[in-house]
């Protein structure tokens, strides 16, 4: 294996365009365990952490720019980001230990393409876009369109994620992410559920997005949640309908972490609780 640490997006694009053995990494929190498990090491490991744009977390007008390689500890330590996107920041902060948080990144979490990635449902409900660079320049894609299956993405050869763009939430809008694991720390989601909700001036639901993790090959949306929630109150009846819709949208597998039946039920429970939590935050003013 060779190692290089370029300082610009253009240098990375050039390396990936000329060396088919090149592979980008940020924290290597997935790459190293995969190498240890016997996957071939990259011929050229391209370290993204020396590129300022990939490490930066900043507010650009009404849009958050989160560098794809920024360690998640930089997100949880950012008070303004946490106030705007508490669900996303919570999800990022659930990934691994303090040691891992100082290396793991949202770009890695997305591109490793684990169905159980904690930050992905929270990115999706917030309509996050990924800026992708490659041989043909840069393009902006919805995060939802990037994972295509376990370990697989829609990125073309030579492409990599540079940063995420997330618009600041409007007033009376907020998000939440919940996951189930059998312990309190250091585990992989059995089910994850993110919700983002806007309330109108009467406290009724004006807009909602729910996304589930670890219950399908990729993150899944719960479009039926809009039908049961929008225009009405967040109450026991509408939340029960949300739980049913989330259970129906889930398409899980049986594995050592949970059965299909269990995951469907937990998806419903977590979706309901995530909506409740997001609604509580939105009712307290939400983002701005």
């Amino acid at each position, binding site marked *: *294996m*060779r*190692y290089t*640490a370029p300082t610009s997006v253009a240098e990375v694009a050039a390396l990936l365009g000329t060396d088919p053995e090149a592979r980008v990494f940020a924290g*290597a*929190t997935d790459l190293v365990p995969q190498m240890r498990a016997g996957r071939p090491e990259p011929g050229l490991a391209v370290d993204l*952490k020396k590129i300022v744009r990939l490490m930066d977390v900043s507010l650009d007008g009404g849009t958050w720019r989160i560098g794809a390689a920024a360690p998640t500890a930089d997100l949880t330590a950012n008070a303004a980001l946490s106030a705007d996107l508490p669900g996303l920041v919570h999800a990022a902060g659930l990934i691994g230990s303090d040691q891992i948080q*100082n290396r793991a990144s949202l770009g890695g979490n997305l591109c490793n393409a684990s169905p159980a990635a904690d930050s992905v449902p929270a990115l999706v409900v917030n309509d996050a876009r990924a800026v992708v660079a490659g041989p043909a320049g840069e393009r902006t894609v919805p995060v939802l369109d990037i994972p295509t299956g376990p370990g697989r993405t829609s990125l073309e050869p030579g492409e990599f994620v540079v940063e995420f763009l997330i618009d600041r939430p409007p007033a009376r809008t907020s998000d939440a992410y919940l996951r189930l694991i059998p312990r309190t720390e*250091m585990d992989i989601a059995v089910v994850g559920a993110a919700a983002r909700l806007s309330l109108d001036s009467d406290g009724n639901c004006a807009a909602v997005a729910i996304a589930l993790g670890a219950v399908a090959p990729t993150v899944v949306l719960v479009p039926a949640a809009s039908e049961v929630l929008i225009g009405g109150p967040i109450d026991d009846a509408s939340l029960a309908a949300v739980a049913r819709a989330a259970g129906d949208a889930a398409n899980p597998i049986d594995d050592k972490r949970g059965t299909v039946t269990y995951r469907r039920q937990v998806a419903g429970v977590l979706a309901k609780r995530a909506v409740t939590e997001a609604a509580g935050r939105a009712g307290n003013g939400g983002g701005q």
Partner: protein
Amino acid sequence: MSRTHVSCNINGDDAEFLCDAGESLLDALRDEMRLMGAKEGCGTGDCGACSILMDGRLQCSCLIFAPEADGATIVTVEGIAAGDDLHPLQQCFLEGAALQCGVCTPGFIVAAKALLDRNPDPTETEVRYALAGNLCRCTGYDKIIRSVLAAAARITRETEEVLG
């Protein structure tokens, strides 16, 4: 293949070593620098036995490619004591019998130091969460947690005595 030259600062001293590009910083510290404090437990970032501070951030050195350390400032467990004077964390681990086999101990000391540096008066819950990335198969954790809390109290007391 030619080896990579790395210049960095380790425990306050300028250091240089040669490494393979795919070598972990943990292996470089142990095999090139002969600093045997950091241990390899899992090699995949789960157990924390290889915890170090790189540029002030707590990290698993098994997940760091050694060339990443070029230009960095590194603190290992060997850099925690002040000469022959043990750090209060180390003293409290000894007094509290917070170790048995000792393999996890360097990682716990470094991780606990990182915690107390940013939060000098943590609650028990905060200590448990902060050390969730460090595994111990001997002690059952209770003595470790109590020793960290005792060290926090001792550091606070010593600071107050110095400040009068």
